[in-house]
């Protein structure tokens, strides 16, 4: 009985943690996207740090670049993303 209760409780915790990390992960991706946009913004005409900073950081920003590019492709569906994280609908 106790074992079963533990197992249910453990599954519930995993579910909560997973739901919790989804929100953190979405926030992380937003920040990574912003970081990539800021550092390379000078190359596309945005107010940004000097463009050489973006060039210097480029070798270490593979993940941020991927996040930024994937954000570009889903820009028109931002509400759906946030609704999915917040489990609406």
């Amino acid at each position: 009985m106790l074992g079963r209760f533990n197992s249910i409780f453990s599954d519930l915790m995993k579910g909560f943690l997973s739901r919790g990390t989804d929100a953190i992960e979405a926030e992380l991706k937003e920040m990574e996207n912003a970081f990539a946009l800021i550092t390379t913004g000078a190359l596309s005409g945005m107010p940004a740090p000097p463009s050489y900073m973006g060039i210097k950081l480029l070798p270490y920003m593979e993940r941020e670049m991927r996040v930024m590019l994937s954000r570009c492709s889903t820009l028109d569906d931002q509400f759906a993303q946030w609704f999915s994280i917040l489990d609406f609908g």
Partner: protein
Amino acid sequence: MHRFLFFLGKGGVGKTTLSASLAEYLASEGKRVYISSLDPAHNLYDYFQQPPAEGVTEVRKGLYIEECSVEGHIRRLLEETSRRMKDTYRYLTVLNLEGMFDLLKHTPGMEEYGFISAIDEIYRRRSGLAEHLIVDMPPTGLSLRIFSMPLTTHRWIDSLVSLRRKILSRRREITHIKGRSYFGDAVAVDDEDDPVLRELSVEYRRAVEIEGLLKDRELSARVLVMNYDELSLKEAMLIIKDLKALHISVDYIVCNKAGLGRVDEKNLDELKDLSGDSIWVDIPYYGDVTTPREYALEIGEALCSMMNQ
């Protein structure tokens, strides 16, 4: 006398002649002197009647000259970045940032990077050569951008470091729940492992050091050269105002070819008010000379005694 001297002013007022004359005079007094031109339209080698060369040339005992190649600094940045990108992004077999050199060198901010990198090189690698290091700056617009760049850069880096730390903190939170393998080995989660944070710290230190070099009144002095004509006087006012906004002082004002032109007394008084405690000196007009070096020692001596006041 200061260790670093930056000569600035409107194009054509005589920055190269005066800075090179001071270098010649100091060398004639047995000092070791290094002079560098950052002006894209260099003529330091012409002044010393030497064939152009790359790197530092000792034109006479204790007198070293160099014309800095800003393009060379930009090219080195692109080469180094291309190399690092090939190391990091393993699937990139063909990447040639140098191939984009012509495009990138004209990208806003890149030219200033080249100048800052050149000043950094003078500070780190040429300091051991000489007791006095003289820098002949490019004309006003570019000089002002160079002076403002370290300040702007270090403010931007402050913001980027703060955002970066938040990113790493979120990655750690996720790792805590999903395990370290979630992001893979290539993605840093700790501050000390993050190459971006490391690179930002290096650039921050560099920006702060260069900012210190450009504005520290103990270490360096800024010599503003002008002529007695309305255009160079107005430009001198602009330089002083813009540098003041960056908390940078103009330590000396040298009026070259004094006696040749005239300016409105009211404007001259305004400039004197603006310049505050800057020390002024007039360098007389020596008439038509066959080479600009003809009166180098007289000019250099006058500048030197102004700076030793």
